[in-house]
């Protein structure tokens, strides 16, 4: 189980008992489904509901940070069939918050989705769950059964006349399905190859019907926003960056795990919550928003607060809130090689620049890491990324390019050292011990 530490627990209120606190009974005991009941019993208007969410300035927690209320308002009112879809296809390296939401508080997501269904006029929803987290999928299925049995799902929910049903769709290993239209294709039983946009899902979504897609954490926040009111939620964070956010901290920290903090919490504070640097070593770099976000060197990140605007100002992205912490034992070339392999492996193969370019990037970085780099390789990498970016249907090509560009930008001398000396700047034995896998007496 991931470690949890929170300031002002909200999303993580229910996590305290870990695997023992997820059931409907527990959820109801901590006020769960009260907001759904209130919405339905008061017959709250869809407009009022969306206005409340807008007020909270809840921004999409999946990575793009698009304002949720605004997204909901794009749904055409008159369409007879609409869908709500939850994106729990959490496969961005460094991100692992949705798994814990599924395991420890699935009902908050269910309640959030039902309320969203009510707000946009959908009668059915799907939660797309990352293939590798089968236990979370199973947990969610159980939670759905509980909610259905209790009358929160199905026809005429709580006698309100509003009907909504919700189903789980299990992925099976494809990062690209985290892209919302790739995800829709996948629910339709196809390869998860993203669609060209426009049309956007709000007009042409699942099965060609208007569809609202949000991240798991976004839906989970909805009941809390309604509980405290949009404005109060906004005020938990900072202007334009409402509420609290889950941060998944991984890498070279003493206590990797999920941490819920108000938007705008200093990075240093988050690092402290994660137990500080492993073995007291020196911070070298941080990827603040999942592997696709540009890496930031220690001096830059230490000045940042954890919110969309501050991280963007520093030249990176808050993304999904996945904070990958790297200390001085890391070879940046090797780190980039692994990330580049990931994008090469996960490119869906549809668009030429990504299909061909992601492999090109990986091969060149691989060469450098293996002592076969050439002086012109860094220029080549920058040129190839330039040719990939902004030229594909989805953002995966950009995601493959950002790490390459940022690693070279901030750690150019390390790459040059590698090319020149055909070896790592960081001693291999130092690298080996950095992982913590080998302890005294091990192997």
């Amino acid at each position, binding site marked *: 189980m991931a470690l949890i530490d929170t300031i002002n627990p909200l999303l993580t209120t229910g996590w305290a008992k870990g695997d023992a606190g997820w059931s409907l009974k527990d959820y109801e005991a901590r006020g769960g489904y009260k907001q759904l009941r209130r919405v339905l019993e008061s017959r709250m208007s869809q407009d009022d509901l969306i206005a409340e969410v807008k007020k909270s300035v809840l921004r999409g927690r999946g990575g793009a940070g698009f304002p949720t209320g605004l997204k909901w308002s794009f749904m055409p009112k008159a369409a007879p069939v609409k869908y709500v879809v939850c994106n729990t296809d959490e496969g961005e390296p460094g991100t692992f918050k949705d798994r814990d939401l599924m395991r420890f508080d699935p009902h908050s997501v269910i309640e959030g989705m039902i309320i969203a269904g009510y707000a946009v006029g959908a009668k059915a929803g799907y939660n797309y769950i990352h293939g590798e987290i089968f236990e979370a999928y199973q947990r969610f299925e159980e939670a759905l059964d509980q909610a259905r049995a209790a009358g929160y799902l199905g026809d005429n929910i709580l006698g309100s006349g509003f009907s909504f049903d919700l189903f789980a769709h299990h992925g099976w290993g*494809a990062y*690209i399905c985290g892209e919302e239209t790739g995800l829709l294709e996948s629910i339709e039983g196809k*390869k998860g190859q993203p669609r*060209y946009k*426009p049309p956007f899902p709000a007009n042409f979504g699942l099965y060609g019907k208007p569809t609202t897609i949000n991240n798991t954490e976004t839906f989970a926040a909805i009941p809390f926003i309604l509980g405290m009111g949009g404005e109060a939620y906004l005020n938990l964070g900072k202007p334009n960056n409402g509420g609290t956010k889950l941060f998944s901290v991984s890498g070279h920290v003493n206590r990797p795990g999920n941490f819920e903090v108000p938007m705008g919490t200093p990075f240093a504070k988050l690092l402290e919550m994660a137990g500080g640097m492993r073995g007291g070593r020196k911070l070298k770099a941080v990827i603040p928003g999942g592997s696709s976000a540009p890496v930031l060197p220690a001096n830059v990140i230490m000045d940042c607060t954890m919110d969309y605007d501050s991280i963007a100002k520093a030249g990176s992205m808050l993304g999904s809130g996945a904070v990958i912490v790297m200390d001085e034992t890391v070879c940046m070339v090797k780190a980039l090689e692994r990330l580049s392999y990931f994008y*090469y*492996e*996960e*490119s*869906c*193969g*549809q*668009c*030429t*620049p990504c*299909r*061909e*370019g*992601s*492999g*090109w990037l990986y*091969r*060149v970085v691989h*060469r450098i890491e293996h002592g076969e780099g050439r002086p012109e390789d860094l220029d*080549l990498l920058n*040129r190839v990324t*330039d*040719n*990939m970016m*902004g*030229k*594909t*249907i989805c953002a995966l090509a950009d995601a493959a390019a950002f790490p390459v560009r940022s690693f070279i930008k901030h750690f150019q001398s390390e790459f040059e050292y590698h090319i020149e000396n055909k070896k790592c700047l960081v001693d291999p034995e130092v690298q080996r011990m950095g992982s913590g896998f080998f302890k005294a007496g091990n192997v």
Partner: protein
Amino acid sequence: MVEIEIDGKTLQVEDGSTVIEAAHKLGTYIPHFCYHKKLSIAANCRMCLVQVEKAPKPMPACATIVTNGMKVFTHSDLAIKAQKAVMEFLLINHPLDCPICDQGGECQLQDLAVGYGDSASKYEEEKRVVPDKDLGPLVSTDMTRCINCTRCIRFTAEIAGFMELGQSYRGERAEVMPFIGKTVDTELSGNIIDLCPVGALTSKPFRFAARTWELSRRKSVSPHDALGSNLIVQTKHDRVMRVLPLENEDINECWISDKDRFSYQGLNGADRLTKPMVKQGGEWKEVDWNVALDYAAHALRDVAKNHGGSAIGGLLSPHATLEEMFLAQKLLRGLGSENIDFRLRHTDFSGDGKRVGIPSLGMKIADISRLDRVLVVGSFLRKDHPLIAQRLRQSAKKGAEVSVLHSADDDLLIKLKACVFAAPSQLPAQFGQVAKAVCTIKSVAVPHFLGELVVSPEAQTIAESLVSGSNVGVLLGNFAQQHPQAAMLHALGRLVSKTLGGRLGFLGEAANSVGGYVAGAIPGTTGLNAAAMLADSRQAYVVLGAEPELDCANGAQALAALAKAAVTVVLTPFKSQAMLDYAAVLLPTTPFSETSGTFVNTEGRAQSFYAAAKPLGDARPAWKVLRVLGNLLDQSGFDYNSSEDVRTEALGGNPEFVAGLDNAVDGVVMKLAPTASGIERVSDVPIHFADPLVRRSLALQMAADSAAPAARMSAAMLAKLGVAAGADVRVGAGGTAIVLPAQLDAGLPDGTVRIAAAHASTVALGPLFANLTVEKA
């Protein structure tokens, strides 16, 4: 309409147009690979990136919808940089094997690389190698060249109707392939060769045969089905090397069937007849033309003199040109014979004299795409009319309701509204039920002959669907026209379409099914039709372009009649053992590729064409041979200077569409009570057996559609007979029997056994429509 500006030029385009469509309207070329006007938008190759004002990133022209006031720059720095970037990516893993690639010279990638590629690649890593795939005998693969544009995949799924190809795996490992162990088998599969913008998919029969720039190109018209697909016939040294579609949106769009594409192999086959031959004393001798023509003329004149003109019969192939049929009937009539027919596979001629005009499609081919309700009666639609089926497939996707009444539930790959499948003898009554329901719903008096029919729920569903339409078509297929109650089916079709204010159409059986009527290649009132002149054998026959044992409704009977005749004169591009057995003289005529001529397609459009190549050997165009025969027989009016002269006489001018088309019919005796019982034969004429030319294409004969005939039947029939699929059964009709393997065909009504016609192995079985005995062999 919206107004947009492309490279400074403004134009008005329809709402919903894409930038690439607008650019094409303007004549501005935007480089592209995955985009194809007939396929869904994939936007995956990214070659068509252009700059759009206010858009921060380059936009794909194929997928960007125009908006009012949009400004597009196709050659700005941003656009060119993006296009060059994409070209570089396309080339890094593409082999540089243009010198040995069949696509060389007609390769979009090659062409665009000249404009957008760099002279040297910066890619120094190992290139990708992709295993080739076996797509069958028609399409050759070189998958390492594939740029994953997915045009071929979209073609199979969207146009041909079944996703035979897909893109497996992902990322750089993505590969286009068929399902493991499967080939590409639809009747339209060859079109993926044209669609492939690189040399990944090329023609297997054409492989390494010629470089494209060595080829001469001639426009032509398909001699096969009645659509009259427009073709480009490519030759080298007067040998046809390849056939491609010539785009004609009103007819074949940009497609052709595999039959149209690959039948040319037969043109160069070993059994081409290249010298006139005469049988003397039981021995065949190659002779000079004048000897053979003299021989033929004398023989025919003698029969006419001694036995009267009616002792001569003329069997004309419906694949012969208008000019050939016109001259043949003129010659026969000059000899005093009215026994002339081109409707070789018909079995019911009771409609003769009752039809108001020449039966045809009753609408333009393009109008098929505008029908919103369609009933197809008695048709192996997909195989008999591949591109008409394709049109209906697209219509059905857009909401048209297509229903089927037939004796075999072959998968048309069309979403059907309703269907009724019944034994051949039941079809008129089943159609009658639909007609009755239509009359009832429309509150029109129900004709007395329909009175006793009980309308089945399926017939009711078909009727309700038809009645709900505003543009209804009833289409009678080859099977309906060959049916023993063809006239009744015609009359019922007329009743239904008339009641609904819709259209009745005959899907022509062959390239000149309308032209045969226009040419007068049907018996006069005193003459015998095709069936009658074989049932009551003649002293002499003139056979034009047909192989009667395979092309007539009763091949066995045809063979017997020809064997009995004293003289059979055959004008044919090919020789066969059967001909050598029954004929007295063989006159080598040319196939469509070596003659000028005209085919009148199913909509009545007269399409003339020139020879694409010189005649092979001593073969001569049949119209010229017939002209000389007319002269030798001292007939008047045979002094034509050109085939155009013949056409002008046959058509009374040079109209685009022939006159006299009318699908009305009057006075057909209606008896809808089904009579037959026992096991009925359902006979199809498989697409690659249908005419002498296609039967000689080696590649097509290896395709899935050329499987040897079997005795196909339902599971219930197999059980009733106590045979397992694959086991041999003895099938008998009219005293003869053949042995065929039994095969399960879940789409057949009980009480029927399907046995393909037009194949040597089933000739002995006799008529297309018959009661059969079937037993374990």
